[in-house]
């Protein structure tokens, strides 16, 4: 019945599934019992409901009998629920006025040996589906108007790639870069893996393509200072810190449908004294590479590094600021437990390059595990060995130590390390230069990250919705993650993740409206008391909140409201509402109550729906 007590006009269709159901379940009994329900206008059983004949029968009945809801009892909904939603939709009924009953996987196949019990269960499962159908509401897809413009934050390789992809897709892009130039860290990379193209040339190639796109509005020396709104329509405040080619100092507001965070990483800065850092001859890999690749092949390494004495021996130390462990690594107390992914390949390449350019320089590479994982990187590792780089493997949980040598020693620095490759030999390696393969740290766009409410993980990098299958989406709809903002990656991986983030933007904004399934929470303001329990229970930022609502008598009170775009439909809010004022559409608690009543209904004396909860009433 509907809310006014008028019977529904439900059609019920029981499928034989060619004997798969009907050999176990007495479909006639099930159909008869369904037909006896006051809300059911027609109940039929057919050999194959999914067949053309089955679907046509439903369409015809909707037209001729004026059905307002349809139940099909057949296989699992995962196989054919969509099929029948489309069927009723073709006949002009709202697709969500369809209810599926699973009497194959969960009845006839599960209870093969007890036909009577299977029939009884099937009948009750169908009754439950009828009860739910009777209380179904028409639903519409959640739609949000989409602004066809995207904001990309960060002008490194990831941001450039995302902006270029979106522009080529036909979308307006505002590309914001904090510094005065496009290119990010890549500008400083000498030669890049895997093509050996200089970093500057590579990023210039990309930046030139972006600049050639009229749809991209590049804002240099600009920061994002505020973000409000939701997917489809964000309002973003930009602040130019210095005059740039595209604008003057000051604030500006732009409206965008989605935001790509390509805010990059920071180089790990070793603490003073960490592996001798701060002392003469101890440099980071980034600094070393920049000088190494800038120097002419016949140049002088010492001069390139700006050092006084000769450079006769160089030691590379891996995992500086990465793979840190409690009780072993000191630092500032915050340990980077993660692997920075790119430093192994960068180190072995730089080590090999040093040997090739300066064959007289001895090179030793001290590592824990060599992680040259990507295509051709293993070749680079092998090439380093062939170029004469000496590899020293530290036992697990041990570290190298860098000491200043005694004044009379021929070399200024001494690296001590135990080498498991030579069976635990304690090595003393006199060198002139120590290169620290420092890792990546989260990029320092803290204020922006807070404004977008994009959460970060334990490692400080931006957190994806699902680390396996949704790596470029943040938990906030419309906020995407590109490049090293999400964690260490190399250039290829950064540009790939940027294109992936762009793909998600394109999907969201390709149409005039963002469309989503309607299975989200909905508040009945007439029952809401505004106590906010739902807001506390909700794990999703911006999905549910309280707002002032003017009631009929002019009184203004707090009432909960759901932002259907941010709601994931889990129902955490439903359970905590003391007034039953919230439900997840399509999965409403009163519908479950109706199903329980139908399942437990005594054939002789049906329990009236909505019976009280006095103890012992059943």
């Amino acid at each position, binding site marked *: 019945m509907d809310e006014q007590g008028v019977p529904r006009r439900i059609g019920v269709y029981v499928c034989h*599934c*060619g*004997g*798969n159901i009907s050999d176990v379940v007495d479909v006639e009994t099930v159909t008869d019992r369904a037909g006896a329900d006051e809300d059911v206008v027609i109940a039929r059983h057919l050999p194959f409901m*999914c067949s053309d004949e089955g679907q046509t029968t439903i369409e015809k009945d909707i037209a001729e009998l004026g059905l307002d809801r349809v139940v099909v009892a057949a296989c699992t909904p995962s*196989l054919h629920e*969509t099929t029948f939603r489309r069927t009723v939709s073709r006949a002009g009924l709202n697709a969500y006025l369809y209810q599926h009953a699973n009497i194959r996987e969960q009845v006839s196949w599960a209870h093969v040996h007890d036909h009577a019990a299977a029939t009884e269960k099937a009948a009750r499962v169908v009754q439950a589906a009828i009860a739910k159908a009777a209380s179904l509401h028409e639903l519409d897809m959640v739609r949000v108007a989409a602004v*066809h*413009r995207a904001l990309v934050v960060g002008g490194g390789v990831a941001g450039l*790639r995302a902006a270029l*992809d979106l522009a*080529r*897709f*036909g*979308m*307006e892009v505002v590309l914001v870069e904090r510094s005065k130039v496009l290119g990010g860290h890549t500008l400083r990379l000498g030669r*890049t*893996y*895997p*093509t050996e193209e200089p970093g500057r040339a590579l990023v210039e*190639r990309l930046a030139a393509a972006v600049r050639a796109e009229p749809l991209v509005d590049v804002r240099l020396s600009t920061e994002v200072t505020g973000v409000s709104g939701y997917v489809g329509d964000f309002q973003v405040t930009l602040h130019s810190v210095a005059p740039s080619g595209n604008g003057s100092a000051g604030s500006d507001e732009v409206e965008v449908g989605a935001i790509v965070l390509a805010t990059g990483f920071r180089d790990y800065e070793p603490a003073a004294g960490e592996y001798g850092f701060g002392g003469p001859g101890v440099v980071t890999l980034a600094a070393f590479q920049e000088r190494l690749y800038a120097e002419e092949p016949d140049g002088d390494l010492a001069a390139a590094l700006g050092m006084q004495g000769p450079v006769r021996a160089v030691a590379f130390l891996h995992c500086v600021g990465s793979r840190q462990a409690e009780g072993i690594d000191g630092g500032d107390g915050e340990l980077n*437990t*993660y*692997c920075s992914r790119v430093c*192994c390949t960068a180190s072995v390449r730089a080590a090999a390059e040093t040997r090739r350019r300066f064959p007289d320089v001895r090179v030793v590479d001290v590592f824990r*595990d*060599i*992680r*040259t*994982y*990507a*295509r051709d990187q*293993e*070749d680079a590792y*092998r090439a380093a060995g062939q170029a004469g780089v000496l590899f020293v*493997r530290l036992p*697990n949980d041990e570290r190298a130590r860098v000491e200043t040598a005694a004044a009379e020693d021929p070399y200024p620095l001494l690296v001590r390390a135990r080498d*498991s*490759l*030579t*069976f635990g030999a304690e090595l003393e390696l006199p060198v002139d230069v120590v290169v620290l393969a420092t890792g990546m740290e989260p990029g320092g766009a803290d204020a922006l990250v807070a404004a977008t409410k994009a959460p970060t993980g334990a490692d400080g990098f931006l957190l994806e919705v*699902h*680390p*396996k*299958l*949704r*790596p*470029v989406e943040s938990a906030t709809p419309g906020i995407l993650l590109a490049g090293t903002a999400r964690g260490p990656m190399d*250039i*290829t*991986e950064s*540009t*790939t*993740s940027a*294109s*992936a983030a762009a*793909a998600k933007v394109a*999907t969201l904004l*390709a149409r*005039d409206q963002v469309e989503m399934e309607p299975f989200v929470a909905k508040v009945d303001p007439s029952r809401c008391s505004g106590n906010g329990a739902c807001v506390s229970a909700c794990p999703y930022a911006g999905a549910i909140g309280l707002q002032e609502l003017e009631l009929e008598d002019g009184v203004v009170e707090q009432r909960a409201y759901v932002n259907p775009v941010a709601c994931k439909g889990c129902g955490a809010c439903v359970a905590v509402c003391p007034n039953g004022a919230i439900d997840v559409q399509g999965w409403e608690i009163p519908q479950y109550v109706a199903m329980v009543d139908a399942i437990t209904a005594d054939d002789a004396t049906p329990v009236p729906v909505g019976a009280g909860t006095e103890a012992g009433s059943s």
Partner: protein
Amino acid sequence: MSERTAAGEIDTDVLVVGAGIAGLQAALDLADQGNRVLLVEREASIGGRMIALSKVFPTMDCSSCITTPKMSSAAHHELVTTFTYTDVGSVEPAGRGFEATIVRRPRYVDEEACIGCRLCEYACPVDVPHEFDGGLGARRAVYIPFGTAIPQKAVVDLPNCILCGKCEKACPTDAIDFLQEPETITVRARAVVLTTGYRPTPTGAKKEYGAGRISNVIGGLDMERLLSPNGPYGRVLRPSDGKVPENIAYVQCAGSRDETLGVPYCSRVCCMYAVKQAMLLSGSLPVADITIYYMDIRAFGKGYEEFFQTARSMGINFVKAKVARIHERPDGDLDLRVELEEDDGRVEDVTHDLVVLSVGLQPGDDVRRFAPVSTDAYGFVRSADPALDATATDVPGLFAAGTALAPKDIVDTVAEASAVAMRVAAYLRETATPAGELVGVAHG
């Protein structure tokens, strides 16, 4: 939907070759942007390798639980047409796009009529080792590929069929059709994406490890099936005698970083799947000893190093060593000669009762057989611009993603699949004629 323009002809926007996780994700993203996709798959079900995995690192999500929704979304998507059991004969540039010849192999089952009820399967008297379970379990000669297969349609394995006709009699919809012929279809597509995936390096590749003839030396993917709740035995047992293993060894880089096998590259996933399996095993076999013999543990992805350290703290034994050879003992146990690369570097002879070879990844298909792309020495598709545009090949309009390009894990594959969708969508727009339909292009 991709349109059938005439008998044996289909017009579509994008042809995606291979319906593993890469193909599924690429197809879904392209379709969600409004493009028509024809997704073709060689096997009888979509889902690729991922659907056969137990759990995934580092989240330990049940693999089938996160793969089936993707499979189902693709199968039900209005703009995605899926053909399983279909081979690609050729892909040639033609006009403003490509012309491809695809061949739908006969299932000997009418897909329209089959309702997936398995009555044929129950009637069939022939047992065949099941490929899905690495040959450790059995299937019938007519069968639904596996429980979560999409489509849930039977297929007749004709070479193993004895033509007894029992399935025909059992089928309630008369779907069995031994007269089915291969169907050749010409596909016109504006762009093509190769997501042909990988196959594991063979466990029999190394003589030193028994050349595939020792039944208690299994591959990493076989262990995935043993660890799956719907695996061949429903629990972890060793194949030779069904004994519960108590002392399991993992041999890393068994088929990777090995020039003698022609696979000098790192396969990128084997360290992590071994660590994951070891953790799962220590959960399901709490008394078992698990040792991983390795060169380097390459736990480089997000959360992977932490995962590896957790495994160490759980008591899984990581030993830096090379396994020189494996011998089978009469009782099925295995003698391993292990050359330590730590401590004093001694050579040890140790005994384990089950050995898992952490096999690597090789290209899933020889794409040059049908597509005009260049590949590297190992058969992986070459990127035209690896740093900035990894999914583009040297043929405009022809793209690749996932392990067709190089070994990679699921998360990197998924990102690359979305990336290729973006690149293809932009390509489609850029190459559309003014009169042509601008599919998926934003307004304003």
